[in-house]
């Protein structure tokens, strides 16, 4: 547990000093909202369209972070150093997933207000509490799957391609469940109730992939 804490602190410190991922992700999501505005030719969105735009933007922004997650380790021998240390290998998975989760939360702190400001029609007041916990639930799944696919792709020669190509199909259930769960929240005539079925699917997805990643991650480090 202490190892995980140390590793997470290292990740966050590194990101705080180098600012490699989070600013790019946040800027990317803002740009994508602008692109959606022109692409869809709408001034305000509501309902399923709003939910779709929000989720697609967050997912693609997450892909930027996923692509960069292990680059420093790969280029500067961090993997070897980690393997030399007498610690459990799964600690790296947990720490990286926690770091990616933190990045996603920070990006959403920027992207969600911007979304309500720029695109969403309905006022955020009613929707916000429910939207927040669904986003957190989804972030968990994205962080776990993103870390796994990032570790899978980092050793390949075409890692910028393999990472997203593997992660996006794997994350389609998150988009389905997330968009369906939040579309009543963004309804034009005020926020409706969250369909709990979809939240349950998000939870199931998180549990399954967390266990699965924990089981297979060690094999990605054996060298």
């Amino acid at each position, binding site marked *: 547990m202490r190892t995980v804490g140390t590793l997470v602190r290292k990740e966050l410190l590194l990101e705080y000093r180098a600012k490699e991922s989070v600013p790019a992700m946040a800027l990317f999501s803002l740009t994508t909202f602008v692109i959606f505005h022109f692409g869809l030719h709408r001034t305000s969105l509501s309902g399923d369209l709003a939910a779709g735009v929000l989720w697609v933007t967050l997912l693609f922004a997450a892909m930027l972070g996923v692509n960069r997650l292990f680059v420093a380790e790969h280029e500067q021998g961090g993997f070897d150093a980690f393997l030399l240390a007498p610690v459990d290998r799964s600690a790296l998975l947990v720490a990286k997933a926690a770091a990616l989760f933190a990045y996603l939360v920070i990006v959403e702190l920027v992207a969600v207000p911007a979304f309500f400001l720029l695109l969403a029609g309905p006022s955020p007041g009613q929707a916000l509490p429910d939207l927040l916990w669904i986003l957190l639930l989804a972030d968990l799944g994205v962080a776990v799957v993103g870390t*796994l696919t990032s570790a*899978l*792709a980092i*050793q*390949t*020669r*075409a*890692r910028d*391609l*393999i990472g997203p*190509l*593997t992660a996006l*199909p*794997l994350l*389609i*259930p998150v988009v*389905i*469940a997330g968009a*369906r769960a939040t579309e009543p929240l963004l309804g034009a005539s005020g926020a409706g109730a969250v369909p709990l*079925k979809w939240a349950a*699917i998000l939870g*199931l*997805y998180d549990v*399954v992939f967390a266990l*699965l*990643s924990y*089981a*297979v991650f060690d*094999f*990605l480090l*054996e*060298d």
Partner: protein
Amino acid sequence: MYGKGLRPLSLASAATLTAAFALVFFYAPNDADQGFVQKIFYVHVPMAIVALGGFVAAGLMAIAHLRSGDRRWDVRSYVAIHLSLILAIGVLVTGAIWAKASWGHWWVWDEPTLVSFLIIFLLYATYQPLRFSIENPERQARYASVFAITAGAFVPLNFIAVRLAQAYTHPRVLSTTGGNLPGSMRLTFLVALAGMALLYVTLWKYEMASKHASAQLRALRRKLAGEEPPLPAGRSAAPSLAAPAQPVP
């Protein structure tokens, strides 16, 4: 050793498939609603079930590879995914034809089974590029197995998510209540399913036998050539059964 029993197996799958097609055309009645075109069902559904079964089986073989470290399990898993991918293309094409005939569109989005199948196909389509872009054969095998396990577990989860997302337009043949197929159709369907499964196993064994034979041939050639270093096999997505070639320093 993979060639053993190949002949009877091939004969059995040829016989079962012939019987299945005979039943499809001469025994099973035309569907009351959809008429003749409904018969594509006897190809489409068995192919889909066998392809998904192959994906899951490949995941299990990959688990065996990671647990035992035996490279042969990786080759088995690779061949299973490779064949399932080919069947998956068949499933998407026959599904589109059937959709066009019975619903009037080549592609129907609110049709969960077709959509989840497409997602799974897209995911597995990265399997070969992933292998191809890792040069070290040992690492290639290990990473491919991790992928196969993750994707194999994703198959059922994805079906749950997509199926819940949409209304039920797709006919559900294997519902828990035992389905609503009349007896003659059910018999035909089961024979077609058995035929498709046998075909899959036969093709799998053929490819394994071929890989085994070429690995042996390479080993014999190497022995004849004496101390010469092994011929560089070239970078490939396909694993081989030969002893892992060490990169020449």
